[in-house]
């Protein structure tokens, strides 16, 4: 039990140092992304939605740092707006997938038996559905919007969290400190909550980093199809969709947005790998 607490303590101070050493680029990219998601829209030099046809499709300039889109809107400001949308997607998916998936996996793995069997099969069935298809069906049934699209993707993220937390729970179920807790009279639910769950933090953070990056990509894909963020609000996907049509006329549009998305995904994956190493080492 004390080992658990120690792991968590050491995390806060040592983690940052470890990440800076192991994956400075990943950390920098992800930090930049979240800073622009949180503060970007407040510092945007122009409105994200104001059209100005006279200024359409301009290249980068002092006035418009990254140029303007086909309706004369400022690309830099829209990119900041899009990063907030992506940040929201990240949060929604990780919260839904993380809470529901972890709860399911923890319960199934911790209790075992018939409950485990049923939950595992259900999770496997869920995992059998292609994420994007489920998302499209849900959005088609409801209305296209960021929240609907991301709830759909969040549901699809449940199996990942459930499987990881289940396997950790099974590994821990019969370890000494759990048996000690049981011997001290702790109830099963209490054991799951305060003994097993804290020990999953590492793997869960790693899964969250990958699924969160995936969520940003799904959001972009769905918005690319017109199923996510609705116009005129910017999103990586809808900006790419627009840029694609003007590839030969103003290629910088596609390059800029493409770089932004890939930069973030790359950063997130580097960071995820580093996190994985960290927790592996800490174990």
């Amino acid at each position, binding site marked *: 039990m004390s080992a658990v607490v120690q792991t968590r303590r050491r995390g806060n101070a040592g983690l940052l140092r470890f990440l800076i050493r192991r994956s400075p680029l990943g950390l920098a990219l992800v930090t930049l992304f979240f800073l622009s998601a949180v503060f970007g829209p407040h510092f945007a030099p122009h409105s994200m*939605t104001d059209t100005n046809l006279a200024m359409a499709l301009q290249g980068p300039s002092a006035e418009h740092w990254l140029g303007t889109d*086909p309706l004369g809107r400022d690309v830099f400001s829209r990119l900041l707006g899009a990063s907030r949308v992506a940040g929201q997607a990240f949060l929604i998916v990780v919260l839904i997938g993380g809470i529901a998936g972890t709860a399911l996996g923890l319960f199934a793995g911790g209790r075992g038996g018939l409950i485990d069997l049923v939950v595992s099969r259900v999770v496997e069935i869920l995992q059998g559905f292609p994420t994007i298809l489920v998302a499209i069906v849900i959005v088609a049934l409801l209305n296209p919007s960021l929240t609907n699209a991301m709830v759909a993707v969040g549901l699809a993220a449940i199996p990942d969290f459930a499987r990881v937390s289940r396997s950790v729970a099974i590994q821990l179920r019969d370890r000494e400190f759990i048996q000690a807790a049981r011997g001290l009279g702790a109830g099963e639910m209490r054991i799951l909550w305060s003994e097993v769950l804290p020990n999953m933090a590492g793997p869960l953070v790693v899964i969250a980093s990958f699924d969160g990056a995936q969520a940003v990509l799904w959001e972009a894909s769905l918005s690319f199809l017109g199923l996510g963020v609705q116009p*005129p609000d910017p999103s990586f996907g809808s900006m790419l969709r627009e840029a694609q049509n003007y590839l030969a006329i103003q290629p910088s549009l596609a390059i800029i947005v493409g770089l932004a998305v890939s930069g973030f995904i790359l950063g997130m994956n580097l960071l995820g790998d580093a996190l994985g190493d960290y927790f592996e080492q800490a174990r």
Partner: protein
Amino acid sequence: MQDRGPNGMIMNRAQFLRLLGASAAATMMPVAMGSGLSAMAQESELVVGISSDINTLDPQMSPSDVFRHTIRSTVFEALVYINPETLKADPMLADSWEIAPDGLTATFKLKPGVTWHDGSPFTAADVVYSLKRVQDKNVGSPFAPQLVALSNVEALDDHTVKLTLANPVPGLLTNLAVIQIVKEANVPQINTAPIGTGPFKFASWAPGDRIRVERYAEHRNAPQVGAIEWRIVPDSQARLAGMQDGTLHMVALVDGKDVIQAQGAGIGVLQTKPYILYENFNINTKRAPFDDKRVRQALAHAFDRETYAKTVWFGFARPTINPVPPEMATYLQESATMYPYDLDKAAALLAEAGFTKDNPLKMEILTIQGFDTLKSMALILQDNLNRLGHQVTVRELEVTVWLDRVLHKPDYDITTDNFNTGPEDPASMFNSPNLAPAANVNQWNPEGYADLVQRAGAELDPAKQIELYQQLQKLILEEMPQITVNHLPLFFLSTEGAKALVIGPSGIDDYTKVVP
């Protein structure tokens, strides 16, 4: 002629392809098409890229088959053909015709020696059957409005048909130019194996993938090319790439940015002489507050048509507020520039109707997935009105959902749309689904409008007819049931040989002179 837009079903299929993976689709498509290169290297075959599939092979049932120039233009023929140069009727299946001075009967002499693709002779009975089939309420042909005035059709002999009309119809020939003649015995199989009299025989249709027709050697005007294959390629960049690597010889119906990019890449562009299409906002005039014409007029002032034409259409569009193009004799002079872009005026008119910053106008503009220029229109109007403090949202709908909400069960405020003007006949515009008194998208039919449309259509004295049509235009410009934005030609991308295509204003194109 009553086609709903040039792009039709685009996004259905586009969406599906994009499922392959967002932007990956864009890069994969040219590769996928490149692999078909060897298969299509057979000589004398024209390959045309279209953005969406047709919805039926039956030429009398497909007005919203926007890719009408496929089966309707090649496998079937009508009595007459509207010449895009003169906008007058040329002979097609009819050799000559005579319209009685009172305008109540018309006699058509049919071309001798014409055969159906199965070898049987084409006769007057086929014409009688075809016109009656279009009129049959049980068939429900969308072309029925073209023949409302037709009270009887009879075969005088094997090669003579007499039409009797309830009232004179000045646009009779234009109306007949869109009615394809079908063979009665073929009708049960017409949607799988259509038989026509046209220069091409139907070969195959793989829905969502390709449509193929082959040369009919027996035709009096046998085509140069051995076969035409239309490939459904929803992505505009992929179509451009197909033109560049030679897998496509032609791309039908593209917009301004594609024209610019094609020109930049050295791809030929074919353009119709008449401005065949208009883009517009439809307004649900049955729904408050859009039943107030001041609101509709304000919206007309809140859209900058000039700059829109210059930037979104790269100057290829001709801004106007009047759906009637200036080429038509009935055009109301100086009307195109009415309702100039003026946000102060828009604000004032909205304030008169009770909408200010404190009581903002709340509305939703619908637009259709895949129609890039229409989406830009919606976003521009939204932005302008929101700057005045109103609350406008834009919703992009999949085309089938859009058809449902706009055409079938009207449940909308405003929507973007585009429409064929029918430049050859003034009557067709006022009988289109946008403006027809009987039923129209705008749900607009004020007192006396139906009567005026009927009288204008039946007027035989050209001077009086012009007068009546100008009265109609004044009414529409005052009432603003729809906000017209521009007139457009149709654009095709094409190789040198394919440039011989003749694009007909009535939706029947001539492929006989085309070489790949």
